[in-house]
């Protein structure tokens, strides 16, 4: 049987990079009466389902995807979670 593995990729803006969308969400939440919010940052979430790979190979492959396409490392960080 085919063995599937799911990679969850979280892409977030690096510290110090201004996030006007996050700021707008923050303001909107304040407008709705949500108190105690110190900051909102918006990112991206991508799921990739891989087939027939070892955890190590999946990690290496998704890291390469992030470096080449999924994230722009000038402004973004990425985190990868693998789930068999």
């Amino acid at each position, binding site marked *: 049987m085919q063995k599937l593995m799911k990679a969850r990729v979280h892409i977030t803006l690096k510290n110090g*990079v201004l996030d*006007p969308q996050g700021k*707008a969400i923050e303001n909107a939440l304040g407008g709705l009466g949500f108190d105690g919010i110190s900051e909102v940052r918006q990112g991206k979430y991508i799921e990739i389902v891989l087939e027939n790979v070892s955890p190590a190979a999946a990690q290496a492959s998704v890291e390469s995807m992030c470096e080449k*396409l999924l994230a*722009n490392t*000038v*402004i973004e960080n990425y985190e990868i979670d693998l789930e068999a």
Partner: protein
Amino acid sequence: MKAAVIVSPGSNCDRDVQVAIRQSAGTEPIMHWHGDPELPNVDLIVVPGGFSYGDYLRAGAMAAHSPVIREVVTRAESGVPVLGICNGFQILTECDVLPGVLMPNAGLKFVCRDVNLRVEVTDTIFTCNYRSGQTIRIPVAHNEGNYFADKATLDRLEGENQIAFRYCTTDGEINPHANPNGAARNIAGILSKNRNVLGMMPHPERMADPALGGTDGRLMFDAVVKALAIA
């Protein structure tokens, strides 16, 4: 002069550039489909504006990996003049031909209007028809024009005179009010280290005929044609 205009799915300024080149050069540019990696030998490559691949993921991110762009990167490195306008500028930063990145506009709105630009350098084939410090008027039309790079990169761009244009007031003053998108240090256009690549958010092809409201943009196409004829 032989020019090529790269056409991607979603390019929408390719024909405007075609008209501007035809007008300045008197020759017809090659309209080159992005999926064809066999780019003919040309004197100038233009990566035009638009919404290549619908701006999916990040503006320019997908187009930066299209077959012809790999060849454009090689040509740029070998010294062929490359002009990236708007989405073309975004693509050139995504494939690391130019440093930095174009982020969503600080005001979160699509900005579509004429802006004033101060010409910062005139020792390039693109800007040699302008006077240093001259204010020119050219339209912008973008959602991601907010130029960002780390401080070291910005300092290097300034130190090496790689900033070609900055957003300014009608009097040529550089201040936050003249900045339509939050771009770092009011940067509207930058050059590569060896100065053969120019990326800019404003659209010179949209100001290349009196019927469009002015000809400040035409001067850039005229300059390239003249410079390449001598070279």
